[in-house]
């Protein structure tokens, strides 16, 4: 009976992921990563579902979801700006970039804009340190970024939405 409740909510996809990992409890981080990749976040109903399927308390799943940075319990915005705050990027002004984006688009790190179009995130290093400061916009890496160039790029993708 309880299982049925969850069956609607893309349970097929989740089952697929679970099977791919052999329903293996110790693969739970990988399972959650796949769910995160699929939906861009970890929907609560899916976590409840895997908790039941893997016979793992929801509290444990929650502790994993909140421990690792890669997971998000809230859906992301349509577009994603990730600013590197690694040391190499920091000494070249990474923090200022976050701050300006925050002010320009009224969005806090880890959150999204009110219209849901833009998420702002920070990361500890992308391994492209020689190009610092580095920003990734929708998967595309931009090295030696300046505040004004980033502003143009972000406004560009936001304008495309309006068309």
């Amino acid at each position: 009976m309880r299982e049925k409740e969850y069956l609607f909510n893309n349970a097929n996809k989740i089952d697929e992921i679970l099977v791919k990992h052999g329903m293996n409890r110790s693969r739970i981080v990988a399972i959650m990563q796949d769910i995160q990749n699929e939906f861009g976040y970890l929907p609560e109903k899916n976590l409840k579902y895997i908790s039941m399927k893997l016979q793992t308390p929801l509290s444990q799943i929650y502790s994993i979801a909140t421990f690792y940075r890669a997971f998000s319990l809230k859906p992301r915005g349509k577009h994603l700006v990730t600013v590197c705050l690694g040391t190499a990027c920091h000494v070249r002004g990474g923090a200022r970039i976050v701050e300006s984006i925050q002010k320009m688009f009224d969005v806090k790190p880890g959150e999204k804009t009110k219209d849901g179009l833009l998420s702002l995130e920070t990361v500890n290093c992308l391994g492209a340190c020689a190009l610092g400061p580095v920003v990734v916009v929708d998967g595309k890496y931009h090295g030696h970024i300046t505040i004004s160039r980033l502003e143009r790029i972000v406004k560009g993708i936001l304008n495309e939405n309006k068309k």
Partner: protein
Amino acid sequence: MKIKNSSELKNYYENLIIKTSKREKRTIVLSMGTCGIARGASDILNSIKKEVRKRKLHNRVEIRVTGCHGFCEVEPFLIIYPQGIFYCKLQPADVRQILMESIEKNNIIERLLYTDEKGKKIIKETDIPFYKKQMRLLLGSNRFIDPANIDDYIAQGGYQSLSYVLGNMQPEEVIEEIKKSGLRGRGGGGFPTGRKWELCRRAPEFPKYVICNADEGDPGAYMDRGLLEANPHSIIEGMIIGAYAIGSNYGYVYVRNEYPLAIHHLNIALQQARDYGFLGDDIMGKDFYFDIEMVKGGGAFVCGESTALIASIEGKPGEPRAKYIHTVEAGLYGKPTNINNVETWANVPLVIKNGWQRYSKIGTETSKGTKIFSLVGKIKNSGLIEVPMGITLKQIVFDIGGGIANSKRFKAIQTGGPSGGCLPEAHLDLPVDFDSLSEAGSMMGSGGMIVMDEDTCMVDVARYFVNFLKEESCGKCVPCREGLSAMFEILTRITEGNGKHEDMDLLEEISFAMKNGSLCALGTTASNPVFSTLKYFRDEYIAHIEKKRCPAGVCKNLVHYEIMSDACRGCGACLKICPVSAIQGEKKKPHSIDDTKCIRCGECFEVCKFSAVRRK
């Protein structure tokens, strides 16, 4: 196709060599690591493909896509073989000319060559000063290897060390060889690798596991990414040799989630190694099974610590545990587990290939071989470098790195990541090895080297690391969790101009408590950035506290930007660039900055052609 024994490998290798020597085609090598791609290498690749098609050059040129060679500063670049012509800082529009002049004809395009300090044009990659003082035993083959093609690795002599080990050596002999070579772990601790293997081999329980630590959480460091992306088979070969020596059948590579390309290349490489019979049953005809599984990290710095990493593979939050019992005795699933860093594993085939005698000739008394560093920050030539242990910091910064960018003054070099420290100019003559750097209050660490100039505020840097660690501490022990929060509060206070003189003593006291009361190395070393900056840059702390001044002009509350009306021509450049519209003024009349709106980004300061913006 499976390669079943050493003579099959030898034949296969010889055929590959004959095939390449007969090839009349030229090869265009394009560096496409994450950094190359970020610099637009994909567009270059597409243009090359398009032009080759258009000009029907298929029979005359071959394209090889490789990982990062190290000189990220001048990317995107390509090399044309056999001549070895190096063209850098390319634009897609340059491709047509390259194919016309340097492939169809034999000409060299001057304007695309690398120009050295003195304005001299350099044709070959290997003649560039950046590479000259390096010793690229690991990185050197990157330019010959397409990481998605195992044949390229084999053609470089790959898997021959494995073949030799399985054919001629007992596990104990392998361990002895590694011990004698003096190889020490590259993940930060510098533990002797052979000894670790021996302990794991001697542990009575089965199964045993070998793990490659590719979590590379040190911000500002990307040595492991470079190796994984460019030459994944060297790591795999090292792990197979290690597994044989230790007596293990199962391996894991724990990779950072933030490295999608490395994950992709590693997956391909693992599959190819299985297809060729280097992984799986009866490796090279020997009764030896070994396979490797890849596990993606979840983006937590502390998971690089070995016991936390093990917890993470087991599907738990990555919290370290006390090491009363070492992981070599009871690690993954409670079984003997040997963890080594990516670069350590990549060194293993090299030790076997050269023999311990030759390998141990490189380096210093206690630190052998080469070390890869990511030389980044305010340096002219940033990139990945590989140098013999014992080279001085000065040689690295000035001879290889070309000195400080934008003719600024050197201030400090930060090594060892969040566990390391900042060393001032007076220490530049230090040789780089495990022991010298620790003695000076820093650490070699895994290989991050962040260069700082006069525009870097050392109090801000200390605050940066403390904030980083505060976010990344797992929170299990009180001194680490609370100590970091307290330090962060104090450092923030100082950078905001509200610091007190006693704060410096307080910081030292907290450092002491954390060093002694934390469980894992994250906590015990967390105070190093604070400690070393207090020791070497105390005057900057004092300036913040007593004079309410940030000498480097970084700390927001202590700097103001102002337009000097006599110098301002009213060109409007600053008005246009200010991201928060804090600047007003009519055209051709002096402008002014609204201090309440200003976020101190410094863009106006940089953009003004008339030096009319003043920072104070």
